[in-house]
């Protein structure tokens, strides 16, 4: 019962965040929303594991948390330099 | 050497807690991966005081407790500002001086600021942190320098006397 309430709250939050991701207006609003969506997914997976009585799902959540972070930073780096390769190192600006 | 040992012990603990399967062959594979990772890190030359901050270990629990309290307080504050009707925010940007002596200390300081809702470190340049706060009160609190003091105490090596310069 309590897991169900928690999971509904997480889904509602995800929907609110998706609205922000669609509205924008700047690209950074969208990245912020998607990053937040990722952490909500981790919570969703964790609570879902408990709801189904299979807490092994947490491993997926753990990996998702790491990939989400790497993904966000990668997108930001791409936004800033327009490149993911070594080109960035030769420019004056520091890394993200 | 002690940093390498610390890295190996830390990685082994992480592996043991995450695995949960304790058969000889799996344990052997785990041990191999831990040692291999330590070897690669050693070869890359990234095993040092900064990447394995053993000297922080003893003081981190107390700091984490204090930071948890701050996070709880500011969560409550920001949540109220979101829910209650009317405009209850007064966004402010301030420049704070990060007095930490190491880059690690400055990073901990900047991340602690960002972690508490209501304040975000926008930039950290040559010891100056540009902080965006959701209200003018939050900004004034940050200018009080309490967090700066505490992070400085956190990074202080053991046995060193407490430095108490006034912070602005």
């Amino acid at each position, binding site marked *: 019962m309590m897991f169900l309430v928690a999971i509904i709250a997480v889904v509602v939050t995800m929907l609110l965040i998706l609205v922000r991701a669609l509205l924008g207006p700047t690209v950074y609003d969208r990245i912020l929303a998607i990053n937040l969506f990722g952490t909500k997914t981790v919570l969703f997976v964790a609570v879902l594991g408990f709801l189904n009585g299979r807490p092994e799902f947490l491993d997926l959540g753990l990996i998702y948390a790491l990939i989400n972070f790497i993904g966000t930073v990668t997108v930001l780096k791409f936004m800033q330099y327009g490149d993911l390769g070594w080109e960035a190192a030769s420019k004056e600006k520091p890394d993200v | 050497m002690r940093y390498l040992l610390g890295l190996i012990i830390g990685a082994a603990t992480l592996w043991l807690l995450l695995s949960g399967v304790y058969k000889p062959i799996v344990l052997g594979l785990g041990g191999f991966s831990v040692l291999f990772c330590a070897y690669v890190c050693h070869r890359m030359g990234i095993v040092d005081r900064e990447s394995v901050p053993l000297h922080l270990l003893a003081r981190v629990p107390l700091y984490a407790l204090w930071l948890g309290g701050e996070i709880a307080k500011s969560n409550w504050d920001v949540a109220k500002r979101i829910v209650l009707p009317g405009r209850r925010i007064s966004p402010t940007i*301030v420049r704070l001086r990060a007095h930490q002596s190491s880059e690690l200390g400055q990073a901990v300081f900047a991340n602690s600021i960002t972690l508490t809702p209501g304040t975000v470190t926008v930039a950290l340049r040559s010891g100056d942190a540009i902080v965006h706060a959701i209200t003018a009160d939050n900004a004034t609190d940050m200018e009080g320098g309490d967090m700066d003091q505490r992070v400085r105490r956190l990074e202080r090596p053991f046995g060193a006397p407490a430095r108490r310069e006034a912070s602005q």
Partner: protein
Amino acid sequence: MNALIDTASWILLAGGALLSVIGGIGMLRMPDFYTRMHAASVTDTGGMILMLAGLMLQAGLTLVTAKLVFVMLFLLITSPTATHALARAALEDGIEPQVDHDKR
């Protein structure tokens, strides 16, 4: 004793759910990008910590709790880093925050 732990975990989960939804509302209500980051911070720290703490009470002293602790630690380290990178990228891109007081 069991009922007590159950109640405590219920309260934590409910609190986490509430903070999470409040942060979502804040994402829609706040006027500009930088203030939205503060709202995001509420779901990212408060909601996440309370919810995972509630789950930890449910799991008891097992490996599951250890994993929950690791999830929490990873999120607590990565989320401010990502937020900071985002804020810096936005500022460098020339998105000026709407502020009442600018004391840079």
